[in-house]
């Protein structure tokens, strides 16, 4: 390795080192030092595995249901047709999560009496028993096509949990 290459390597090391010392502020800085906030007096979040049995059954409308995540207070599955992803289904426990619950205030649309809202353009969310969020998210199904999938969850079973 000749001296010019060495100098170049040195310059690269210095410039990348200098950039590392002065991090520019970003839109994510607040979240970077916090964790998910929940009201301290709220009932504890349900354990992993509590929600799987309330999902729509495998094989409905030719859709394969594949479970993808199972964490504390959260379960997720995806719907696939011919090996391609069609939608993501999820149930999450919003116990004590004021920000998540807020969006259902004043919801006029309902399924089986539970408030229904649209989040962004690709997600429909239903609130069961004032704490369980049942969601269908899809970049292919529109609002009208997502709604029947919400109805395929065992909502009364979930409300009895």
């Amino acid at each position, binding site marked *: 390795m000749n001296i010019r*290459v060495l100098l*170049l*390597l040195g310059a*690269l*090391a210095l410039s990348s080192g200098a950039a590392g010392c002065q991090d520019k502020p*970003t*839109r*994510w800085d*607040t*979240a*970077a*030092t*916090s*964790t*998910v906030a929940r009201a301290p007096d709220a009932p504890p979040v349900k354990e*992993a*595995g509590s929600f799987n049995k309330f999902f729509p059954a495998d094989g409905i409308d030719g859709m394969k249901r*594949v*479970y*993808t*995540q*199972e*964490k*504390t*207070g*959260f379960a*997720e599955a995806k719907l*696939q047709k011919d090996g391609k*992803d069609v939608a*993501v289904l*999820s149930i*999450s426990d*919003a116990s004590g*999560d004021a*920000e*998540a619950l807020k969006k259902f205030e004043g919801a006029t649309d309902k399924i089986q009496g539970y408030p229904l809202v649209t*989040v*962004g*353009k*690709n*997600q429909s969310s239903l609130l069961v028993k004032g704490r369980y*969020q049942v*969601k269908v*998210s899809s*970049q292919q199904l529109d609002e009208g096509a997502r709604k029947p999938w919400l109805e395929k969850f065992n909502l009364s079973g979930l409300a009895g949990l």
Partner: protein
Amino acid sequence: MSHQPIHKILEELPASNLTTRLLGALDYVVPGQWENVTSWETMIKRVTGEDDQALIQRVGDRAIELYNDPEQGYQRAIQIFHLVDSTQGMAGAAEMANKLSESFDFLSFLGRITPKADTTQGIDAAVKFVAEMATFCYTNGLPGDSVGDFLSSLMAYEKEDSIRFAAWVTFDLVLPLGPDFLAKTLDVLSSATHAELGENSRFARIAKYLPGADLAEKAGLLSSTLAVSSGHITSFVAEKGLDQQDIFQRIKGYVEVGDNALDYVSAAIDMSTNYFEHTGIQSVSRRLISRAYGEI
């Protein structure tokens, strides 16, 4: 907070280096599955398809916050991805040289590359596979029968997960071990003594994160995970037509170590790339964002 936030870890991934170019060369194995996303916002847009900036902010914040809680397992998954791929020795020099030219000339580093014995290669490959299972569980949860559930989700792998699996099969099995890769690996695992396993540096680095009370149980996990998945692995290789010489022809432009030096090419790739860590960080980011979108 001692750890680095996940958005920073993702955004520090290189947009282009030897690892990403080799992964790009594997696009023919899993066409269109992998894109080198190194921006947190872009990853949120890919996962959700949303473009409202306030919504993107909420999803991104929530995902970062979920990662910050060590109890959630995501930090441990990242740690395993890092440890199993921790490239040392020449990697740093290779990275620097790599920045200076599009294709990195390994000839100048040839003296430092030692081809691995089949025993080491077999154990390394098995360790990576068991690490894949462990990171899957830390990231996505711990279902009842973890090996069986891991297998069914392995078959539904996509995006970063699928390119990582393709790279593992290609670079850690078929390229260094040839068509009998599975028999060779299972052979190595059944004949390796616990002392040999204990001396394997990759295994030693991640052993404490693997299920099992002692070394014997952890070693058993290597063979059982691989054995139970062997059908899927061999059909993947057959279906994709993965062939040692064909792979060599496709990637030799990226890794110049002379003709017919398959073992040198494999060793060079192993020493100078971190495909496991690179795609693993992207996988964990994707799963966090998907969960955050479900929870907000």
